């Protein structure tokens, strides 16, 4: 059997992922994260915080919660259930940083935690900053 035939053959024995079910779950769970953050945000506004600080504090609380859940070992089990709905928001970003930091704790302060904390989040930061930069240039060029 040549390589092309083999690739065709194994397709038959490769289980299909439940893409639709997972996407639906992510849609719902992502929405729930959004609802929870809105509730927190509204509570902050009730306590007479201004819009900017209410947004920041809401994000801080989400980051705190997901890092805490990662630390006590629950978050990865939640991802199994709720899929990417809790990975795409800032909760997932905090989770990737905390899990990397925990993982490299024993490898030393510099060579471990220092070098590996942004192992997963690094790409999000780099490409986030690069795309922000490009968008900023487009804005300046076209809209002044």
């Amino acid at each position, binding site marked *: 059997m040549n390589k092309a035939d083999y690739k065709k053959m*194994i397709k038959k*024995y490769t289980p*299909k992922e439940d893409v639709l079910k997972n996407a639906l779950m992510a849609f719902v769970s992502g929405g729930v994260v959004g609802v929870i953050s809105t509730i927190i945000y509204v509570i902050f506004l009730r306590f007479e915080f201004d819009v900017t600080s209410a947004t920041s504090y809401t994000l801080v609380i989400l980051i705190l919660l997901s890092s805490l859940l990662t630390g006590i070992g629950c978050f990865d089990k939640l991802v199994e259930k709720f899929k990417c709905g809790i990975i795409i928001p800032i909760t997932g970003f905090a989770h990737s940083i905390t*899990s990397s930091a925990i*993982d490299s704790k024993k490898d030393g302060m510099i060579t471990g935690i220092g070098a590996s904390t942004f192992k997963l989040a690094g790409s999000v930061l780099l490409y986030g900053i690069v795309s922000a930069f490009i968008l900023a240039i487009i804005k300046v060029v076209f809209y002044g």
Partner: protein
Amino acid sequence: MASMKFNKVYLDSSYSVVSKLEANGNIKNYDYVIDDYYFGLKTFEGAEIKMQRIVIDYLLTKNKNMDLIVGGDLSNQLAITSYMASKYDISYLGSYSACATFNSSIITLASLIEANKIKNGIAITSSHNKVAERQFRYPIEYGAPKAKRSTYTATGSCGVIVTKNNTNIKIESATIGKSIEMGIKDSMHMGAVMAPAAANTLSEHLNDLKRDISYYDLVLTGDLGIYGSKILKELLSKDYNIKLKNHIDAGSILYKKEQELYAGSSGPVSLPLVLFNKILKEKKYKKILVLATGSLHSQMFVNQHKPIPAICHAISLEVL
């Protein structure tokens, strides 16, 4: 291909250490079950070394005169096995064939014993789910959804004494496999990566020793998983005209279905755990062909999107 017969090589006592997850699986009565993945130590790597040392310590109480330890694990540079071996005043040879390491270790020892270079040796292997996850995939606590085709690295260590003294399990012959690459790049689908190697080694073994598949009461594969086993069967019947009937895949039966661990277990320890704690204890089979399969990928080549080569080494056991 390199096939060889042995006349005076036997397997003596074995010892298995596993974690609770494996102990709750299909196979009962392991020798030692560890309570948690740290095993009382600060790191997972330390725990894996300790598991190996428990195995060696036990085997040395059975026979003190060991000439050589041959073994390996999944960690980079075989660090786990090498650190384990540093505790003993016994010659040590590291061996890496990924999940086929157990067979490569046994073949090395058997050849040396057959050639009268040594009398007794220990073959050992281990894997630790968390050590492998850290090295090959994501940080332990990182929740990346797993694909159904992926396998779960088993945690445990297993060792056996290979000796020239008569016992009731004889190593009758062996075949050293070729590194086979069929263009599969998906490191999650290790069954598909390894099945061609298993098929190739099985057919070469039968050709070299002029045997029919019916010669064996059982063909035991290592960790092809549920899907890999099906691929192997189709490959054998289409390409090699071999009908595989009496086949068990260690990776597919180590865990219970209810444990929901995807396509089954992987890791070099899966095969010896099933071989020594189920197949040989049941005493149902006389002639067993053990095909240990290994996916020879490294994280570097996976990142570079290179196709993954696989290996399969065979040993033929006779229960006397």
